[in-house]
């Protein structure tokens, strides 16, 4: 398809914007640029271009989207309407506190709900995404140890099943990464952990349920080992959708938590963002939260500037519009609704796994949480058809593929997360499609390798894209 630039015509002028009602300012000649190349189209052409692009994309409303670790649940329409209210959207972040009591109250209310859900004592909404939250959470931990004169804690322990953001965030926060081994079911090896911790342990980062979709049974033991060594426990909230309203990270022994409001709390992913990654912590770390903090005073909500902040990580107060959507979600569901959502997410995942296991060997001996990982190694060994091939064949059957080749500890991994909003019919159909693809792989592997054939393009040459980068058009 032509790009918006290729559709441009020099004859067309874009939208007419109001001319100044006052005298135009003439800048010194040397300051001004020559031409500016932007698309030149009529409004209808712009609308058609982007509508055509939208038809070459796949959203949650288009079909089943079991992308593991991403929690692609339905995004309620009401939330878009609320975030767009002039009382939120048309408000400047530097307005005097007494004129923006609504925004401050909303953040404060959301923070207290998030404290209730996680068992933390305070939250900040400044981080714009999960990885951004990880970065800040680790800075809180660093500031905490530093405040105690404990400068030797330079290492963060991360299981090999963790999201790539964990080790990357630890490095950005100035820590050294130590890898913790996991057993076949993704649980941390306790003896190995005991040998790893010590006076240099700053924290352990853990996703629970793990990226294998299994609840870390020994979490209390792990917390004890890390705490006894003087380290802190960091909770990666990417998988909270399994246990929100059921158990609290704070009760599991975690000291710092980040949440992904664009996962568990239903804010849309927007084709890659914006998300929101609020960070919560236990009392001992509260003084290090970034400024400004919001305080509930006798004169209403006010901004507070603490002296011990671990530092600002972005402008203003984070992705406020996303916070509005998360709050709307929480108040609609309530405590019971949130627990029911988690339970249904877990039920849907177990059911899909069970149904898929009728077609292909999948270990169902231990209940999974909200997601599960299938290794396509046997299929690959038997037929040459890979996880990637199966993913492409699912596309032809109207299903967005699961996450593939993650976690790294499972060969030919496919990670399915159906979420609580999917229908039983959708799950049944997906299991059938999966079975049909497995059978086709044995009967005619080349046919699976040709997929997808129903899409505007076939498989692109990604190696060529990286070898000879064409990044602008």
């Amino acid at each position, binding site marked *: 398809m032509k790009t918006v630039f290729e559709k441009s015509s020099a004859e067309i002028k874009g939208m007419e914007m109001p001319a100044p009602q006052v005298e135009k300012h003439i800048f010194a000649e040397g300051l001004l640029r020559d031409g500016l190349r932007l698309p030149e189209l009529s409004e209808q052409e712009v609308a058609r271009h982007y509508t055509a692009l939208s038809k070459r994309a796949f959203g949650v409303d288009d079909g089943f989207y079991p992308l593991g670790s991403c929690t692609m649940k339905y995004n309620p329409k009401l939330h878009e309407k609320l975030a767009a209210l002039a009382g939120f959207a048309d408000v400047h972040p530097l307005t005097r506190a007494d004129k923006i009591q609504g925004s401050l109250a909303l953040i404060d209310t959301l923070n207290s709900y998030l404290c209730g859900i996680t068992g933390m004592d305070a939250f900040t909404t400044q981080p714009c995404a999960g990885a951004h939250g990880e970065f800040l959470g680790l*800075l809180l931990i660093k500031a905490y140890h530093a405040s105690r004169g404990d400068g030797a804690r330079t290492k963060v322990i991360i299981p090999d099943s963790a999201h790539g953001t964990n080790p990357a965030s630890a490095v950005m926060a100035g820590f050294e990464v130590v890898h913790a081994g996991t057993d076949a079911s993704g649980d941390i090896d306790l003896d190995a952990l005991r040998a790893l911790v010590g006076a240099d342990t700053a924290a352990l980062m853990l996703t629970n349920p793990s990226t294998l979709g299994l609840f870390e049974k020994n979490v209390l033991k792990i917390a004890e080992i890390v705490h006894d060594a003087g380290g802190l426990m960091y909770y990666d909230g990417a998988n909270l959708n399994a246990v929100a309203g059921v158990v609290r990270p704070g009760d599991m022994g975690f000291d710092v938590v980040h949440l992904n409001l664009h996962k568990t709390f239903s804010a849309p992913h927007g084709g890659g963002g914006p998300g929101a990654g609020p960070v919560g912590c236990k009392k001992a770390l509260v003084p290090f939260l970034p400024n400004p903090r919001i305080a509930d005073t006798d004169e209403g909500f006010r901004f507070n500037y603490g002296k011990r902040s671990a530092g600002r990580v972005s402008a203003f107060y984070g992705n406020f519009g996303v916070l509005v959507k998360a709050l709307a979600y929480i108040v609609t569901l309530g405590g019971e609704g949130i627990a029911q959502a988690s339970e249904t997410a877990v039920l849907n995942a177990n059911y899909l796994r069970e149904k898929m296991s009728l077609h292909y060997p999948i270990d169902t001996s231990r209940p999974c949480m909200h997601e599960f990982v299938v290794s396509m190694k046997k299929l690959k060994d038997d037929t040459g058809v890979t996880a990637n091939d199966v993913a492409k064949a699912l596309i032809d059957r109207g299903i967005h593929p699961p996450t593939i080749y993650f976690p790294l500890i499972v060969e030919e991994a496919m990670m399915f997360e159906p979420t609580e909003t999917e229908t039983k019919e959708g799950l049944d159909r997906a299991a059938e499609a999966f079975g049909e693809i497995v059978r086709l792989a044995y009967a005619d592997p080349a046919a699976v390798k040709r997929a997808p054939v129903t899409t505007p393009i076939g498989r692109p040459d990604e190696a060529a894209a990286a070898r000879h980068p064409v990044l602008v058009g």
Partner: protein
Amino acid sequence: MSDYISLTDKEREEMLSVLGVGSVRELFADIPAELGRLKVRLSQGRTQKETEELVSSFAARNKVYKSVFLGAGCYRHYIPAAVGAIVGREEFLTAYTPYQPEISQGILQAMFEYQTMMCSLTGMDVSNASHYSGATAAAEACLMCLGKTRTIGVYDNVNPDTLETVATYARARGVKVVVLPSSGGKAVPYEGEADAVYMESPNYFGLVEDVTAVADAVHIAGGKLVVGCNPVSLALFRTPAELGADIAVGDGQPLGLPMSFGGPSFGFITAKKEFTRKLPGRIVGETADAEGRRAFVLTLQAREQHIRREKASSNICSNQAHAALTASVYLSLMGSAGLRAVAETCAANAHYLADKLSEAGAPRVHKGEFFHEFVTDVKGKAAEIVCALDRQDILGGLVLSPDRILWCCTETVSKSDMDKVAETVGRVLK
């Protein structure tokens, strides 16, 4: 409260029986009993109507002003209705990061077009597919330049939130931050050692900087220059690339995004070609499928955290894709003439107001060319002025000190609004 769950009770029973369990709680058997017994206490659920009423009541407690003269990093511009109608399409709004190119060509192509537009505005060779905000874009751009000196210089006349964010990112990695002085509101060329120097033009006070003079000094000392810029101003001014910057960054909110209490916005990072493999976050490239059809893909992923883990160029995963798409649609609707008109009207209004305020007894504090923001001396009456404007449904400029107000004019303010501001300032100062 269960509006968003699709299962019926009967289906739930069927599914449990397929799994051979009596209740869904049996599926949570791995959770230690002592944890499961603790109750998570939250409010009762609500209907959507009740939620709408409740959340709207928060919005009603904020004041929405008829006219806004406050900028300082967030700007009220006119947003054509077509922007919201187009970007509100669920295929854009509810999709994930385009990991599967065959069903994500629309999103990938839009990102590719976005990268092209940002390079066009800044004059740079490459762009990533967005960062969280202008502040984080500045921070990560400085980190891209890290070398021997492990030092980053930041001018004291940049947006204070950005300065603080750069400092947080730098300190976290054990990198030294030197705050560089300005004189008369403008950056003084720095000849000391630094891997990166960060400046803004227009700067926090709205002044157009002599970027080339700073670039020359930085380059002689062996460093790289990162320039933060307002994207609307780039419709008028020479590009950062042309002036000698190595990396140009900024906050994209002025390009068709509402103020939204400060977010979501997005940061752009554009750079000279040599930095391509150091850029943080997603980048889209053009390629072809086996039949030679044009295709777009996420590329150069060997930089990224999901491949490189602790060796990645950055930890960023989710970015601000939808906000960047919004800016692309806005720019497509504007075209070069439309964006130039917006920029010219902003500048014309700001210069008109500056003259009027000077006549009213509040002259500009700085000399030199400015874009759409400027600082005036209000002789200790800043708070009083802002309060008097508030009573007239006008959001005044940012109070920098009792003596100083930072004003901003966009194309949304009218001549009569500006006359009213000047008249009010004159009255308070009399």
